């Protein structure tokens, strides 16, 4: 008896986008990254429907992090206050597909550094590495609206992925990203409807839907991962059903969220195994889970976790050309 055909096929697909501009394209990147394009759910359907291979963006902070656990500081201890070198290390030693510059240091509570600093960091990282960049604000609306347009300008023409914009704060950054030719991250607090609303608002401003990546918020293993998983799955299914407002690739913030988990960093817990292993394991488990829900870019931190996740990706998407 033949095995019945159970493959679903869908009318829609995830938008395929290419981040980074090479010299030919008016930028200075030595390579570009293409994501999206899936015409089915992960593991579903034909190999050629799987779309582009997901990528890892490694976090580089603009300012030396004060609260990182020892296990995470260790691989970067020489470069934590040198964003350029840090980025270089991530790309050359750890195989980062993209660098995500996270501007924590501009936050009023975390250094309150100004636009000059942020611009300098941006230029430094652009110079140090050839991969495309993700430029991610600090989360304080007022400060982001003041600084991120300058950051955008400093990377003009590089086709970076810049963000984040939210329902109640999207106008300034959307306008500048449009002007500077970047891609935009639209964010929502684990709410599929609000995610769609932000996309509509941004597109009402004339921003092309094909230049948007969505961030649905991320929950780490044990800390709401099921919400993140189900929202991302819903977004993928909406994209496949032909909803243009939900057809964007997805980015996840696995690194930051995983390392917030006490299981990842608590030292005095003999029954839990070596603390040096737990963090990378937590990050790996969170990342692989969300990849299966349909994440296209995973932001990560620990090199060992990155290595494992990249191996996972290469196996799952191995038949891809």
């Amino acid at each position, binding site marked *: 008896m033949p095995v019945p055909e159970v493959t679903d096929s869908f009318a829609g697909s995830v938008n395929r986008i290419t981040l980074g501009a090479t010299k030919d394209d008016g930028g200075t990147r030595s390579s570009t990254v293409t994501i999206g394009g899936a015409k089915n759910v992960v593991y579903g359907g034909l190999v050629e429907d799987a779309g582009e291979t997901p990528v890892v963006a490694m976090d580089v902070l603009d300012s030396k992090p004060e609260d990182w656990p020892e296990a995470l500081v260790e691989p970067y201890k020489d470069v934590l206050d040198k964003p350029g070198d840090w980025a270089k290390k991530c790309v050359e030693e750890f195989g980062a597909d993209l660098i995500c510059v996270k501007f924590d240091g501009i936050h009023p509570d975390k250094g309150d550094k100004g636009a000059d600093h942020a611009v300098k960091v941006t230029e430094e990282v652009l110079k140090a590495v050839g991969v495309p960049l993700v430029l991610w604000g600090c989360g304080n609306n007022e400060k982001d609206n003041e600084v991120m347009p300058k950051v955008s300008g400093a990377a003009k023409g590089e086709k970076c992925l810049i963000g984040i914009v939210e329902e109640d704060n999207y*106008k300034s950054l959307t306008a500048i990203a449009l002007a500077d030719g970047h891609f935009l991250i639209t964010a929502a607090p684990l709410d599929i409807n609000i995610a769609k*609303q932000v996309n509509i608002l941004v597109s009402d401003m004339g921003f092309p839907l094909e230049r948007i990546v969505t961030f649905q918020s991320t929950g780490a293993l044990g800390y709401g991962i099921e919400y993140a998983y189900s929202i991302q799955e819903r977004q993928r299914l909406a994209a496949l059903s032909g909803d243009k407002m939900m057809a964007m690739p997805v980015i996840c913030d696995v690194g930051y969220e995983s390392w917030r988990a006490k299981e990842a960093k608590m030292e005095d817990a003999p029954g839990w195994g070596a603390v040096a292993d737990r963090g990378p394991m937590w990050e790996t488990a969170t990342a692989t889970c969300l990849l299966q829900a349909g994440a296209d870019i995973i932001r990560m931190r620990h090199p060992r976790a990155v290595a494992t996740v990249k191996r996972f990706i290469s196996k799952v998407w191995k038949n891809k050309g």
Partner: protein
Amino acid sequence: MRCYLQQKEFGLGKKTQDEHGKKCLVRFEPSGLKIEVPFGTVLLEAAHKAGIYLSSICGGDGYCGKCKVIIDSGQFHSRPTTLLTQDEMREDVVLACQTTVLSDTTVTVPKSHSLETSQILVGSDAHRFSQLPAAVRAGLFEFDAQVRKVYVEMSPPTVQDHTADHERLYLAIREQVEASTMQTGFRILQKIPAVLQNSGYKVTATIGRRGECTELIEIEEGDHRAKNYAVVVDLGTTTVAAHLVYLTDATTVDTEATYNSQINFGEDYIRRIIYAEENNAFDEMQNRLVNDINSLIVTLASRKRIDLQDITTVVCAGNTAMVHFLLNLDPTRIRREPYIASASFVPPIRAAEVGIQINKRGLLYCLPSVAAYIGSDIVAGVLTTRIFTKRGISLFADIGTNGEVVLGNKDWLVCASSSAGPAFEGSGVKHGMRAGAGAIEKLIIGEDGTVEYRTIGQTYPAGICGSGLLDTLAALFTCGIIDRAGRFKTDGRFKITEGDEGMQFPLVAGDDSHQEIVITQADINNLVRSKAGVFAAIRVLMESTQTKLSDIEAIYLAGGFGNFLNVRKAVTIGMLPDVPIEKIHFVGNTSIAGAKTVLLSQKAMNTAEEIAKSMTYFDLMSHTGYMDEFVKASFLPHTDLSLFPSVA
């Protein structure tokens, strides 16, 4: 001045014996009303006692900031609040609910509180729907009023015909009226022999339906059929409206409305239930409502020169809580799990028993309700719009403090109540007001941002009522002054100003004697939430019954919006589904129309009971899909733009 008061505050802990017993005379300007209250009485309470209306959404909890008054003279103690500006504090503006009086005090009540009771809108809306209810007119229900006066001429008893007076009267009545089971009260029974004999056996019998039974309510000598009136009442949370009906020819002779004076205890009924519970004020709640009804009845009767004795019937419809307050039935479980009413079907009772002053043997009928949050006003709406008789599916939405929605046809009816909030009634909106004189009821914003409007009574605008708010929200959206999330755009195209409560759009410029009228970001958020609640309820009912948009043949929108409701705007903002506009009908106050139908036909009462029994109630709070639908609907017009092809 405030410093002095702060010192005063200090001394409060050491209240002397004298102060405890001291009385303070509080005088309210500009009305000049005075009240003597004990030392330390809360000003809001003093105002209530003096019969002064002060707007108070939170019911005295100190967080709505609506009960602002100005202290002209006297000593008082005010608890600190963040709801007053520095300027206001300098001018001795206080929150009445946070202020206690410590001496004789004179208080000025700002104009914004005043209710202008005599000018509440019943006007053309009332007239449009005031005549013989369509259902009766259309012959759906035969004319068979709940209380009738029957003139009977009997042949006096003889040796051959020795039927007793009482039975003789029954027989004569039954010749005219179908009344297989009859009963007579003891006092009337005692009256019968004398009245019959004095009148030569020509009497008027007043008979009232009490379910299957017909009661002989009154007996009078001679023919008094021409003197039979009834009052139908809509017990609104905000407004109590009454129509006077001449039962002989079933015409509405006059209408009147007043504010529900329970409003002092909270602008929504949940708050009033809490207040009544905490202060054991159930009697007071009843008294206030009954007083409102009585004053309406007296106004109507005196205007038409009618003797109160000739009013034999009162029929009420209203939300479940209001009916409970009226009858002094325990309303507390309406707000608590499992959210039940004390009674859904109320038998006819003597109106005098609840204190309604009509003919002392006159009857009070209350329409049946469905559930704690679906009251008899909604049953009345279904009865009025006749959606229960139609093959096609209709949608009925009554927008008040709650947005109740009914979907169905002759075979089934489902209903739900969304806590839409009173935004479209003008509450919770900075310059919102009820549909009364001076309310902007129609508004247009031009492409350049110029505002044109029309007010009720063509006076200088005092605020914006429901239909005006609907117009305003739609115009802000279509002009691009706000984005789809309802937030002001800051692209400089329109004049957005910064007010006390954040960004706002000026609608009417103020001058020396008139306040500026604006719409604030908070107002817009409230309006969007209200409309989202209603639309989400509609979606839940549609999805639960697998009703497609194309299946809906008619939409009836009810509520006290104002007269010039443009139903198109309700679609523009995404409150009602995007159906061809000719399918949407604004039907005004269907609560009172339904009550009138029941007044005029016992069969309609039976039908109302059947409707109430057959409606399936969906509890949205426990419905898993409701929040999802609510968030989707909290967007202009909706997150799923394909649902609104005519707008998006």
